[in-house]
């Protein structure tokens, strides 16, 4: 027990861990807030598809010698417009389009990485998340992103809720549903791009979906669900990051396990027979 407590205190002496805690905390709250709308619209697979396109962007960035962050950012933005193009053509079902884009991007990433030697570990870090990846630049980027996303959510909260709860009612109220959906997906894409470093492409969807679903168990209204999800995500992420440091396991996996544990305990404890 005492060695574990020592390890916890030790963690706080490292700059990289403090950076990870800060970025992880901000990101967890942003993901949880956006996650409420993802759950509302039943679009968990969208985040899955966007993160996989991001992975392809990273692979291409490494191959072409472009800054990985820039490649990732442009890839997720491009991913949003590719998804919207297919969805709005109304020729294929939503789940087919999203799975197609996710799997094609993953396959593309694997092929690109197979042609390079020595970079496989880099890609593994983006697949499962690594707290060692968080640089000082990421901290500043997260601060700017945090303000941008929070401003977007506060300022557009009402029309976003209208558009994402029920399109028909929103359209009848004069809300520009397509424009807001695009705006929402762009917000989501930027958060996913930052989240990929700490949580990883394969686990990000869980980061978005688990806290809102845990909060839903206790919430009496949507406002309560949003606030609850942010609190749950913040607590779960901090415990998960500490666990990742103590047990020396990938950060994304540990955070998702903690969040998943909180969900399971809450769901089981509130079952009515």
């Amino acid at each position, binding site marked *: 027990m005492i060695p574990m407590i020592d390890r916890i205190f030790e963690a706080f002496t490292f700059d990289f861990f403090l950076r990870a805690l800060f970025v992880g905390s901000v990101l967890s709250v942003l993901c949880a807030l956006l996650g409420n709308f993802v759950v*509302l619209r039943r679009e968990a697979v969208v985040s899955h598809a966007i993160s996989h396109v991001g992975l392809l962007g990273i692979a291409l960035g490494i191959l072409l010698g472009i800054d990985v962050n820039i490649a990732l950012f442009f890839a997720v933005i491009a991913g949003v417009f590719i998804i919207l193009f297919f969805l709005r053509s109304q020729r294929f079902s939503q789940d087919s389009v999203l799975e197609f884009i996710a799997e094609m991007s993953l396959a593309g990433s694997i092929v690109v990485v197979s042609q390079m030697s020595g970079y496989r570990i880099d890609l593994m870090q983006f697949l499962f998340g690594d707290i060692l990846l968080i640089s000082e630049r990421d901290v500043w980027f997260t601060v700017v992103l945090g303000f941008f996303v929070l401003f977007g959510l506060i300022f557009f909260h009402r029309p976003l809720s209208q558009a994402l709860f029920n399109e*028909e009612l*929103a*359209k*009848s*109220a004069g809300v520009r549903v397509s424009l807001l959906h695009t705006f929402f997906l762009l917000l989501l894409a930027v958060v996913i791009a930052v989240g990929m470093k700490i949580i990883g492409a394969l686990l990000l969807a869980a980061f978005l979906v688990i806290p809102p679903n845990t909060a*839903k168990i206790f919430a009496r*209204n*949507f*406002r309560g669900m949003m606030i609850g999800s942010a609190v749950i995500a913040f607590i779960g992420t901090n415990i998960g990051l500490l666990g990742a440091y103590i047990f020396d396991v990938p950060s994304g996996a540990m955070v998702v396990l903690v969040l998943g544990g909180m969900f399971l305990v809450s769901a089981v404890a509130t079952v009515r027979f």
Partner: protein
Amino acid sequence: MNEPLVEFRSVSIERTGQNVLEHVSLEIFRNEIVTVIGLNGAGKTTLLKAMLGIYKPTRGKIILRTKKIGYVPQKLQFDRTIPFSVLELLRMYSGKGADVVFQKSQEIQAEKLLEKKVGELSGGELQRVLLVNALLADPELLLLDEATSGIDVRGEQQFYTLIQQLHQTYRMAIVMVSHDIHTVFAQASRVFCLNRTLCCHGAPQDVSQNPEFVKLFGSYLAPYKHDSHD
């Protein structure tokens, strides 16, 4: 006569390459109850959505002389597990304060539903809530798209009585889409019979004798024959 509140001038609407409405011309005036009838796929919902501006005409012109439109959809597709309260939903779509929402809900005896979760409402309760939502727009034009589908016969009668009361109170134009011909004829001042084109229209008693209408709905109007019980 008054200037029409809504005017369709030879409106055609195409959806996914198919004509859903063809050369529909009609006028809706203030303070009248109009019912749109037609078989499945006749373009009834498309007609309402064109009035709402959700569908744009491929050809022709739609003139709306009001922006105050209330809309009650046929079904509300949403995730029933999301804990949206009725009050939250009504405030979100109307942008009005809790006191205004409460007052409007009282008018149609829906104030007890405000604290409930939307996903826990019965079909009849949900329609009432959607009606409050439509009324919060202070509508001059109220559009009801098969608003009683999924409600039992008693609930349906109560709903139409409520619509009549609201019409008398607010003197707004009401456009109802319905499949229940008998109820429709009892409620409406004018009937539009739609089959992608406007087959016939006029007072209920005139429309009921129109050959186009009889051709479309003849089997529905025939007296129902019970099986022999002896």
